[in-house]
Every structure is written in structure tokens, then in C-alpha cells.
């Protein structure tokens, strides 16, 4: 028994070391690329950091709450369009709202992030309140249906580019930074990722996180100790949606483009794939998955447009042989504990 406990503890320590190595790697590679004048590598690292952020958002719902949401791209798209709409109005000197009060667009990132987070949270509240009344395959289907609704709404919304999406000309600004400089924009995205990971690490150990984990194991047992599983899951879903929306705003700013594809079910699937790849319910699982995803996309995508076949194979291997994902495999731990 004590041997098992020691194994769990050493596995947890190894996982922390792996997390630190991953974070240090993600922080140092762009720094090297900056010295080596390889801006595209910095952009790839920025993309990995943003996708990791989206995955961290999904991981709250999927990993902590056991909610298999197949529509998380909705929140990613909402964040992207929040950025696109606010920035395009600001660029065109066209007020967002003229009555009853005049509301201007903005290119100020902190305001855009707050709007994206709030919009994502409100959407998650509405979608969650409806979809969390179901479970299992019905929950998956309802979240997928919401994703498709938003997707078709975006492509049929001519005011904001319809099928062509919404381009902005200049990246939005952040006080004290030149966001057009790839390394500075990377640093900003990486800092946001670190803050969210720190928040997530605290959340996992909080009474709320523990209750959510318990509700994932047994609804009845959680109710028997006086907690409402529906509210717990809804709160997790809202948090998850808000973080994913923030990632969407950063992603749209990276590309200076908000596209209906940000709402697509394929993107929902991709976010889920790299969470599973890295390790569901692992703090840095989405980060590991996002890094692998971006690397495969970059290195194999250049060789063949069918590079997803290799991603599929890797996912198959991880699901069959490493239920704790890549992080679980490296740390010698199985599926995540609470």
C-alpha cells in the first residue's frame, strides 16, 4: 500500500517536472528564434500557446467536469468575432451602437479581452443551461448542434464578412508593447497562458474543483452531501467557455482575421483531440497536445495535405496505450486523479 502511495507521489512530482520543462521549452524556443531571426517559429509558438489556452478552457469542462462538449469552437469563434467586430468598428471610425448611447469600437486589447470573456461566458451560460439537462451522447449532440448554429449564423452575417470572414488591418494594441512584433505578441499570449494555468491549478484544488471532480464520479453521492451537480457543471461550463473565448480573441488577433471556421465542428474536434493527446484533466495536458499538434501541422503539413492521418494514428496510439495522454505516459501515471 505504501509503495502505491509512493508511486503516486513520485508520479505527481515527475508530472510537475514535465510541466515545467514544457513551459520552459515553449518560453525559450521563441527566444532562440528571436535571436536566430526566425519569426515564423515565434508565430508557431504563439499559435501553440493560444491553442493550449483554448484546450485549457475545454479541459475544465472535459477533464474536471467530465463534459464532452463537441461545440467548444462556439466560444472560440465568439472570442474571435468579439475581437473582429470591436476592432473593425474602431478601424472604420464607425460606432458599434448609436442608440440609445453611442458605443465605439476599440483596438485596446484589455477591453477586447473583457468583452470576449463576457460574451463567451454568457453564451456558455445559455448553452450550458440548456444542454446540461442532458448527458452522454445527447449532450455531445446538443453542443455540436449549437456549434453548427453559430457557424451558419456567422457565414450568413454579411455585415461582418459572411463566408469571407472579418479581416482587420492592424493588430490591436496593448499598453507598453508593440504587438506587431512577433516576440512581444508571443510574450503577451504566453503570459496569459501562464496566468490561466495558475488559476486552473488553484481551481483544481479548490472546494469547487473537488466538488466538480466528485460530481464527475457520481451525481448521487454529490447530491447526498448537499451539492447541486447541475450548478457545479454549469459554473464549470461557463468558466470553460470564457477561457476558450479569450483564446479565440488572441487567435483572431494573431491572424488579424476572424473566420466562420473558428465556429466549425472540425475545430471543436481539434481542440478535443489535443486535450486528449496531451492528457485529459492534466494541468499541462492541453499544452503538450497543442505543441504536438502545431509541430505535426507544421512539419507534416508541408509534406502532405493529408497530415491528419498521422495525427489520427497518434491519437489512436495514445487512446489505446496511454490513457493519461502524453503527460501521463511520460510521468508514468495513468488516467488523471483528482
Amino acid at each position: 500500500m505504501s509503495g502505491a502511495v509512493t508511486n503516486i507521489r513520485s508520479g505527481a512530482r515527475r508530472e510537475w517536472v514535465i510541466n515545467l520543462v514544457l513551459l520552459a521549452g515553449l518560453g525559450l524556443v521563441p527566444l532562440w528564434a528571436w535571436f536566430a531571426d526566425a519569426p515564423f517559429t515565434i508565430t508557431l509558438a504563439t499559435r501553440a500557446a493560444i491553442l493550449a489556452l483554448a484546450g485549457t478552457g475545454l479541459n475544465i469542462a472535459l477533464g474536471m467536469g467530465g463534459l464532452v462538449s463537441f461545440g467548444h469552437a462556439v466560444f472560440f469563434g465568439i472570442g474571435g468575432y468579439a475581437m473582429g467586430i470591436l476592432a473593425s468598428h474602431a478601424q472604420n471610425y464607425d460606432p458599434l451602437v448609436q442608440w440609445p448611447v453611442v458605443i465605439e469600437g476599440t483596438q485596446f486589447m484589455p477591453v477586447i479581452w473583457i468583452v470576449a470573456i463576457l460574451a463567451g461566458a454568457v453564451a456558455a451560460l445559455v448553452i450550458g443551461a440548456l444542454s446540461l439537462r442532458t448527458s452522454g451522447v445527447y449532450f455531445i449532440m446538443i453542443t455540436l448542434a449549437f456549434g453548427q448554429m453559430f457557424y451558419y449564423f456567422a457565414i450568413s452575417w454579411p455585415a461582418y464578412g459572411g463566408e469571407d470572414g472579418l479581416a482587420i488591418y492592424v493588430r490591436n494594441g496593448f499598453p507598453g508593447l508593440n504587438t506587431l512584433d512577433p516576440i512581444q505578441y508571443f510574450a503577451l499570449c504566453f503570459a496569459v497562458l501562464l496566468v490561466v494555468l495558475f488559476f486552473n491549478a488553484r481551481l483544481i484544488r479548490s472546494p469547487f474543483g473537488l466538488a466538480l471532480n466528485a460530481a464527475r464520479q457520481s451525481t448521487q453521492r454529490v447530491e447526498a452531501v448537499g451539492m447541486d451537480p447541475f450548478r457545479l457543471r454549469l459554473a464549470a461550463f461557463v468558466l470553460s467557455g470564457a477561457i476558450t473565448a479569450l483564446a479565440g480573441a488572441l487567435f483572431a488577433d494573431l491572424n488579424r482575421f476572424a473566420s466562420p471556421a473558428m465556429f466549425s465542428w472540425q475545430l471543436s474536434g481539434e481542440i478535443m483531440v489535443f486535450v486528449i493527446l496531451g492528457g485529459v484533466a492534466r494541468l499541462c495536458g492541453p499544452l503538450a497536445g497543442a505543441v504536438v499538434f502545431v509541430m505535426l501541422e507544421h512539419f507534416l503539413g508541408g509534406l502532405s495535405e493529408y497530415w491528419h492521418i498521422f495525427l489520427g494514428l497518434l491519437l489512436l496510439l495514445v487512446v489505446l496505450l496511454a490513457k493519461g495522454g502524453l503527460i501521463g505516459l511520460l510521468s508514468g501515471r495513468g488516467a488523471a486523479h483528482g
Partner: protein
Amino acid sequence: MSLLTLEGVTAFYGSSQALFDVNLEIGAGEVVALMGRNGMGKTTTVKTICRLLPAKGVIRFGDHDLLPLPSYRAARLGIGLVPEGRRCFGNLSVEKNLTAAARPGDWTAGTVTELFPRLGERRSQIAASLSGGEQQMLAIARALMTNPKLLILDEATEGLAPLVRQEIWKVIARLKQESGMAILIIDKSIRELSRIADRAVILQRGETVWNGPVNDLTSDLTERYLGV
């Protein structure tokens, strides 16, 4: 005034009726043994009290009508359940199991580990890796962490080694003496129940057939309704 009242309670599993007419009262600080042979409706009665199974009739807890409430609201009113089969949150540590259930009150992680020192020693151990007895202690401790007015123990000593059983009975006796909490116990050990309970209620085929002070239980009654 009684803390918990059940009057004419009926309950169904699908179309199959499990409870026909259950009547039960528990006063504040009272320990009541719910007795009956296997399949007579004891656990079903507990499920109806905790609102885990729909029921008809009257179920009151203090001033509250429990029937329209969801189970988590019933628990928040002060009903702590130690379910049959222990059922801890297996992938959480002992400490996390306790923290997840904690509600404000006198029972804290400190006081429950004082009651069960073994849990204190295994604070960071995953619940699924505990022995059966330790899991049972954790299930009781977790219910206490909700700071209940009524603690329901459904077969809390079932399947445990005699020494562990004794340890748990001692804790229950201590809870009776020191906490002032009402306790409803289901257990097969009539000897222990007779020592601890103030009153007994016997169920037979989903109906209350006997209700009275535990000292009034005669061998004729136990033979007729409990088969011993």
C-alpha cells in the same frame, strides 16, 4: 417536536411498489434503529428520506416538507447519509473527499480525523486505495463534514472485519453521547443496535409493523420479523 417524520410513505421502482405504508419518527438527538429482513424496504426508506427516490405520503424534516425537494436540498437541510457500500469519491484523496463535502459547522477535517485517527494518517492517500474499513470511516467522516442534524448510517459495518466493526460501533456510541445529533441506523447486528439505539422501527414488506423503545423488543418479535 420530531426532527424527521414519515407518515404513510409509499414508493415505487418503476411499476413495482417497494414501500406500502412506512411510518417513522425521529426526535432531535435520538438514535433509531431501522430493522427488518433483507428486501423489506430499509434502504428504500433511506432513499426516500434523502430524496433519491420519488415517494408519496408525508416526509417532513423539522418544518420542511421534503417531498418536493431535490436530494441536494434535503442534504443541505441537515441530512447526512452514509450510503450502503461506502461509496467514497474513489479518485480523490482522503483530505479532498472531506474538503469536497465540507459545510460550515463544528465538524471540520480536524475534528473528524480526531474521531478517526487512521484517516489523519492517510490524509493524502487516494480513497480507492484504502481498506474497506478505512473507506467506511471516510464515508462516515464525509457525512459528518456536512454538519448534519440527522446522520443516516445504512449498513455501516457490513462486510468489515470484527475489529473494525467494533471501532465503528464505538464511534457511533461516541457520536450519540457527545454530538447530540439524531442518528438513524440500519444494521444486521441486533446486539449492537440494542445497545446503542433508543428506539427501533421494524419494516415488513414495505410497511412499518412495529415501533417502540428498543428495550421492548422481545425475542418473539425478533424471531417473527427479523428471523433471529
